[in-house]
Structure formats: structure tokens, C-alpha cells
């Protein structure tokens, strides 16, 4: 299953579309919902813009990661580190071979794979990725409390040329730049 997933991810150079992110409690009740658009491109570049219920941009060019909150007039700038590498958004833009060493991969059914971290202090308990003919349609992440964050990806398009400037953030006038 690991090789299958690796090869599927290998020919995924870039992925873009819209997302809805829903947090479900351990009884499956919806607790929080947000939505927006995203663009991801290997290696390590992504643009994750939340539009509802609040504005936020999470941008990385592979080295630096910007978290811009227009409502707070604040942008936090961090260097991409080991810990951040494991977030779901980065999983897709990381090199696939790294995935199969850090995670046990099992094939749930056609197009659906579950990743279970092999390391001791995982960020999540399991991550299930569902493929579609236009890329990935869902990523579901379960944390240690039985809560699940489900990213539903819609009108996704694969391997389209991407405007590089998307992955670099310039702080507008009057925004506080906080370097961490």
C-alpha cells in the first residue's frame, strides 16, 4: 500500500482547490467549521487561505512559513521546522518517500489510504487520505481525544502551473510582523 500511495503522490506536483474544514467531537458532532481555498506545490510550498468564519492565510515557500491574520493586523513568521513538517497541509507537499518511513500505510479500499505515525510523539493518531480522479477529495485527521478534523477538498485540479509569488508573503502597510 505504501508504494501505491508513494506513486500516487509522486505524480502529484501541485494541487489546488477549495476546502471545507470541519472539527467533529468524539460523538461525531460538528464543533467548528471553516472554509477557503488552497494551492500546494512540491517541494514544501503551500498557500492555505481561510475565508470563513474569519480571514487567515498560512503560506510557505518551503523554508519560511507565514501566518497572516488580517483581523489581528498581525503576521507571524517562522522557519519551517520538523514539527510543522508533519501538519496535513505539508504532508502533500513533502517528498512521498519520506512519508512511508514516518508512517505505516494501509489501504482501506480503492482510492483510500490510512497513515499511522510510527514515531512516539505523533501530532495525530491517524490520517486518512481519499483520492479522486482530480487529485485528493478528503483528508481526515484523528487526534488522541477521538476528535476528527475533516478537510473536504472540492473543485480540485492537479499539476496546473502555479504562480510562484503566491508562496511569498509581503506584509501590507500597518501590519505587525512578528518574527519567531
Amino acid at each position, binding site marked *: 500500500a505504501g508504494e501505491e500511495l508513494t506513486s500516487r503522490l509522486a505524480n502529484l506536483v501541485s494541487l489546488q482547490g477549495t476546502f471545507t*474544514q470541519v*472539527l467533529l467531537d468524539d460523538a461525531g458532532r460538528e*464543533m*467548528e467549521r471553516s472554509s477557503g481555498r488552497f494551492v500546494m506545490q512540491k517541494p514544501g510550498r503551500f498557500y*492555505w487561505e*481561510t*475565508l470563513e*468564519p*474569519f*480571514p*487567515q492565510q*498560512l503560506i510557505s515557500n518551503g523554508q519560511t512559513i507565514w*501566518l497572516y*491574520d*488580517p*483581523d*489581528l*493586523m*498581525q503576521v*507571524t513568521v517562522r522557519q519551517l521546522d520538523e514539527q510543522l513538517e508533519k*501538519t*496535513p*497541509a505539508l504532508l502533500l507537499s513533502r517528498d512521498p518517500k519520506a512519508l512511508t518511513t514516518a508512517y505505516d500505510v494501509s489501504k482501506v479500499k480503492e482510492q483510500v489510504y490510512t497513515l499511522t505515525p510510527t514515531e512516539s*510523539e*505523533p*501530532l*495525530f*493518531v491517524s490520517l486518512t487520505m481519499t483520492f479522486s480522479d482530480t487529485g485528493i477529495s478528503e483528508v481526515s*485527521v484523528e*487526534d*488522541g*481525544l477521538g*476528535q476528527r*478534523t475533516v478537510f473536504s477538498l472540492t473543485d480540485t485540479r492537479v499539476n496546473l502551473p502555479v504562480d510562484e509569488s503566491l508562496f511569498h508573503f509581503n506584509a*501590507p502597510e500597518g501590519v*505587525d510582523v*512578528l518574527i*519567531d
Partner: protein
Amino acid sequence: CARLPTQTPESALDRAAHEQALRALEHWRLGAKIGVRLPGDSGSARLSWEQDGERYRLSLSGPLGQGRIDIDGDPTGVTLTEAGEPPLEAASAEQLIFDSTGWELPVTALRSWVLGLTEPGAPVAQLEVGPLGLTRSFQQEGWQLRYDRYRQVESLYLPGLVVARRPLTDGSEIRLTLAVHEWSLERD
């Protein structure tokens, strides 16, 4: 960028009656973003806060829903749950949040400040009220509070953007920015 709607009353409101109504609120829930700026550490998190009489639940989560922290409290004590960690107990929310995030959040006082109210029983300095009767700024417990925006919720005006700053002895400061995106007063 997305400007939060500013909603202020057409004419000056009866401040005393408005404050009394706010103080009488038994149940409220807010959905917000909190920005924290500390010397050497800053960030932002999604914050949801439900207050029901003396019981409350605060949830903080990072972008993509990572690092979620839930804090449940009532007069007897406070519990913090975080995925992959054993639950933490403490007598006060302030201690709990400091132990787990290193952030100093004046939670008890915030409960009043977030409604645009000063904390009962503590001295207030430099209270400034806007022309329409809404609080603009004040100082309390070493914090400087500033209310940049309000939102109308039913018949009340609740803060939309609050900045709280605490100067530190070394000349730096702690700054909390709260952008409230959703207020709800009904009991769901």
C-alpha cells in the same frame, strides 16, 4: 482585507442600563481569533469561549486545527485537555494556561473585559467612554484595554476588536488582540 463590520448605535445609548444588561448576562458564547504577542513568542489561535453562569469552556486551536486545547472550568476547579497529553487540573485557569502554553492570560478578568466591562471589585483607571456611550479604553490590574470595534448582538453592543496590553518591567510588553467573529447569547 476583510474589514469586520462596525456596528454602533445611531444615538448615544443609556450607558448605565446597557452595562446593567451586560452584567446580567448569564449565558454567552463567542467565536474569535486571539493574537498573542510576547517577548520571544507570538502567534495566533482560534478561540471559542462558552460561558454558562459560573461554568465555562474555552477552546484554543492553531491553524489547520492543530494543537487544540480545551479548558473546562467552574468554581471548584479547572481542567485542561490536549490530545496526546494527560489532562491537567488546577485551581485557576490562569495557572493552567501558563503551565501549558507559557502565555499569561488574565482569564478571570477577561471574562468581564471581553464583554466590554471592567472587572467588578478591582480599581479602574483612565476610563474613556466614546460619544455613543460605549467604553473606549481603561486600565485595570496592570493591563491597558482598548475597544476598537463593537458589534450589535440583539439589543446589546458587544466588542468586535479588543486590544489588551501589559507593559513589562524590561520595557517590553505582552499584547493580546481579540477579533470576535461571532457572538451568541441564546442557550443552544
